[in-house]
């Protein structure tokens, strides 16, 4: 058989795409029966809409000082103002953008790094694998939040820095999973056949192993998004976020500085935290439903 012919017989990206479209349709049929999945998806989409249309929804510019500081909720300022006189409601609306942005970007980078490391480690094995796994283990044993704090303090405040800090630490679960999947796929006959015909390693990884690893990576990505959003919230709360961006964590940070808790300024505390919770809950529900579907043992009869 020629190289072309063997390539034609083994699963490739274009074939996989066709199969995917069919699978996605079937998948949606099953997914839509899960109440939790729909609720989760609804939550996520709602926040997306809020983020995109923030300028239409929010009554004030979140960056400007539009009123007297530390007001209680009134008619003109639904959730009052913060210590600099900015409208809290508007800040929360715009906060959706920051949280979603950071969550998705940081998760994407994390998963990207994890996938590359996992593929490389699993496919090439040997010394490279041992070294990468040793490094991965090291990252796993390090307490993440304190480390992120330290890194953030070194790099300084700011959105990009937060994204970097989160991405550096959250790739490990993906790496491990991709690696074990790659190892089991590596043993399959179609990989041996590709090698025998002379396909380069890169080609094998890219066209044959990667597509089969993708569903797992996708499921993992959602969990990483959850972790990234919570991490950003934590870092911002401790003051390491961008002081000019109205991320929910920052809103809570300033609330804490203004003594919101000891003075009972609940309107500064409850809404931003609730938003974080609902967004994370949305993704978590989606992840839970995906897990139910993909893991046959947990499925009910």
């Amino acid at each position, binding site marked *: 058989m020629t190289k072309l012919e063997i390539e034609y017989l083994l699963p490739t990206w274009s074939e996989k795409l066709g199969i995917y479209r069919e699978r996605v349709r079937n998948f949606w049929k099953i997914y839509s029966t899960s109440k939790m999945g729909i609720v989760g998806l609804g939550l996520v989409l709602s926040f997306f809409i809020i983020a995109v249309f923030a300028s239409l929804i929010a009554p004030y510019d979140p960056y400007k000082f539009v009123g007297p500081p530390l007001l209680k909720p009134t008619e003109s300022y639904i959730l009052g103002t913060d210590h600099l006189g900015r409208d809290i409601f508007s800040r929360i609306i715009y906060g959706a953008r920051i949280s979603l942005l950071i969550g998705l970007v940081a998760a994407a980078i994390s998963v990207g790094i994890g996938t590359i490391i996992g593929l490389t480690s699993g496919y090439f094995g040997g010394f490279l694998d041992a070294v990468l796994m*040793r490094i991965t*283990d*090291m990252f*796993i*044993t*390090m*307490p*993440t*939040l*304190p*480390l992120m*704090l*330290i*890194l*953030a*303090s*070194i*790099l*300084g405040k700011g959105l990009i820095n937060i994204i970097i800090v989160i991405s550096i630490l959250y790739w490990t679960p993906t790496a491990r999973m991709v690696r074990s999947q790659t190892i089991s796929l590596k043993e399959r006959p179609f990989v041996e056949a590709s090698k025998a015909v002379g396909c380069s390693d890169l080609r094998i990884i890219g066209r044959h192993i990667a597509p089969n690893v993708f569903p797992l990576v996708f499921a993992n990505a959602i969990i990483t998004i*959850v972790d990234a959003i*919570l991490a950003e*919230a*934590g870092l911002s*709360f*401790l*003051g*390491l976020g961008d002081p000019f961006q109205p991320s929910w*964590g920052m809103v*809570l940070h300033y609330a*804490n500085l203004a003594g*919101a*808790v*000891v*003075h*009972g300024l*609940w309107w500064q*505390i*409850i809404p931003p*935290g609730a938003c*974080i*919770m*609902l967004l*994370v*809950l949305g993704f*978590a*529900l989606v992840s*839970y439903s995906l897990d139910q579907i993909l893991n046959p*043992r*947990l499925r*009910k009869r």
Partner: protein
Amino acid sequence: MGMREYILRRAISSIITLALIIALNFFIFRIMPGDPTRTIVGDVRLRPETRELLRQQFGLDKPIWVQFILYIQNLAVGNLGVSFQYKGTPVTEVIFGRRLTNTLILMGSSIALALIMGMILGVIAAWKRGSKLDVSMLTFTLVAYSMPVFWLGMLIILFFGFYLKLIPLAGTVTPGVEYSNFFDYALDYLHHLIGPMVTLTIIDIAYYFLIMRNTMLDIFTEDYMLTAKAKGLRDRIILFRHGMKNAMLPMVSVIALTVIYLFGGATLTETVFSWYGIGRLTYESVMMADYPVLQGIFLVMAIAVILANFIADIVYAYLDPRIRY
């Protein structure tokens, strides 16, 4: 003997990881862009000569390799350097002592409580899958998992401290009070412990519950569970003696992992509650750019985690009779 070899292998592995972390610990702080001398004297315009003197005093002027050797030498004798923010106090004094004790008490009590409750509830929920208990626990788990831990802390202070006035608003003990005996002191301490401990426990229970439940569901598909039922044994015996005993194996590894996560949770919680512990120290040191203390904290945490993992591996080998041979 298999067990001894196993322990040896794990010990070597842990030591290697520890060595890597020590090296990492050192080099991270040397990449810092900021100037630590600013922390030491505050933001005062220093004459270059004075600044240079300070740098010499803290050994910051020597080449990096020399600094590294010095660092290792100091480490070997237990000298972790001197704090920047607590002018001249040795780092070991700052970290160990009251702070470490407080954090250990906080983490220890919440892990213990969360573990016991989470595991038992997990077993029962798995057994009565789909029941009201199961569904409500799952919902609770999902919600607790989604809540940022610091927000939960703030809510607890708000409701139970500010509105209901049941718990204090901050701190480890009431400031400025003198105690006539240890009992009163302990009572006040415990009163202050409730808030942060409950916060951490709620987050932890969710995690342990979920893992236990899923592990038990897997175990239910095993043959030996059917055998136990065929023997006509009581439900309780089947669940706990046959099922949970097997579930403990993966749980042990999970518990070690949560210690890692808990350090982060403790940091946030201690900050919210102004609990005088390592977590809060981390936050303050970050704010003050007190790198020696941060290095020390990082080292302590890493050692704790490596130790926890090592102990978990040993316990696992002890619990699973199959590994010893």
